[in-house]
């Protein structure tokens, strides 16, 4: 990785937190999820080259959610980059990346299914793994299911 890459990324994303995560390539922490689509476009430009999704998922941080997007470069797969974007818990909304990446359609359906984050502009946002009539989103930390076995102390 060129030495000034982090500085280049920082100047391309002034409001974001850019850091190096030992061995995984750079991490770009966006200030808001609204900037996600524009950030993907910037990162796909030839000077950066992160044009392909490898994985797209989310985390529940308790007070908010966080989208985690792993990008790779199709020219050089070693070049990895992680983009993170916070999502407010109350609204749980994010812009869809379907028009940019073909795989985003299913990944966003999965995030919606398991975290309940809604993607604006998704053509067919419905559950993908769980049954249609399931209630709740299991990967949320406050998910309760009376059928879950409770161990003492848990």
């Amino acid at each position, binding site marked *: 990785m060129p030495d000034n890459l982090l500085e280049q990324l920082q100047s391309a994303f002034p409001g974001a937190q850019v850091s190096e995560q030992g061995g995984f390539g750079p991490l770009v922490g966006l200030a808001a999820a609204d900037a996600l689509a524009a950030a993907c476009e910037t990162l796909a430009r030839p000077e950066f080259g992160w044009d392909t999704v490898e*994985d797209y*998922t989310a985390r529940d941080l308790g007070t908010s959610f966080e989208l985690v997007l792993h990008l790779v470069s199709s020219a050089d797969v070693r070049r990895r980059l992680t983009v993170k974007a916070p999502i407010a818990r109350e609204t749980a909304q994010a812009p869809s990346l379907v028009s940019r990446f073909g*795989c985003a*359609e299913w990944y966003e359906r999965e995030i919606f299914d398991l975290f309940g984050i809604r993607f604006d502009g998704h053509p067919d946002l419905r559950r993908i*793994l769980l*049954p249609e009539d399931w209630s709740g989103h299991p990967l949320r930390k406050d998910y309760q299911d009376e059928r879950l076995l409770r161990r003492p102390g*848990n």
Partner: protein
Amino acid sequence: MNPSPMPPLDQAPALATETLTLNMGPQHPSTHGAMRLILKLDGERVVSAQPDFGYVHRGMEKMAEALTYPQYIYLTDRLDYLSSILNEWSFCLACETLAGIQVPRRAEYLRVITGELCRLSSHLVWLGSMGMDLGAFTPLTYTFREREMILDLFDLLCGQRMTFNYLRIGGVSRDLPAGFADQARKFLRYFERLPDVYDQILSDNAIFLQRMRGVGVLDPAIARSHAVTGPSLRGSGMALDLRRSEPYSAYPEFQFDVVTRADGDALARYQVRVEEMKQSARIVAQALDGLPEGEVQAKVPRVFKPPVGEAYARVESSRGIQGFYLASDGTVKPTRCRIRVPSFANLSVLPKLLAGVKVADVVAILGSLDFIVPEIDR
């Protein structure tokens, strides 16, 4: 009453036709597991195809929140059950990255040997069922005979035929038993000429070629947009193989070729996998010959508590890039465990591949993508 005479054919009113919705599965031999394909058909032609899955969803990402790291290893076997070692490998790799553990060199070699044997047996199962999907039963009897020998090797190694639970954080659970290396070498000598035998019974078969050639052509740009990896991507001419392009473990020390084919059709994906079997056998032979002496397990605390942080580790599995994204809050259990599975992304390209093909090609395309349902559903 006299029947009215038939009108001449060119004056007959046009037949009203409509599309037919056909559920293929969830129990169907060519979906290789419980998966439903909702096909909309116009006569013999597929108008649209929508996969529906989740029938074996076990909530494995949620289960990780209730289990300690070492307790989770055996569950990873149940993802892609044909290449269990490779799932364990990426999970252990993620844990080792989190905690900064160095794996002893002998353990890395044992991981390569078992991992490549797993890839070999997975490709053998695929080859047999691919032939059977197209109506050729003989290859299955051949490939399952060879696969059984690999499973015997694993039985000798860890007492299990399929869900091995062999890898540990920082190494492997036990060293090679006496006789393993000899038996493995014997198998490799026996296996040497077999990919060519399979080729003779399938690739020299005119029916097989006609059903595979030019069918399900996957454009490299679409493949990358859908995050397709593994042999399915290499069949479209892209040489993406993590073992070569981001070498992990002991892979830099071995000679092997990254197999690609440019055509992108079902036949190209078939050829890539047959050729990859030879490469896997090559790697196992080299690893057996160069196996270093030493420990097979690094020093890992009895209670594994990685520091607060995140790690994303991935390996080249039989079907593509398989990875674990782990987030640790400093306790014995991960706070988030995300499983990146190759089959999920590889299958997402299916609606595009199936639109417009004939019904008979659906099975050939499904088989050539080589997905595995428990891995998609998790």
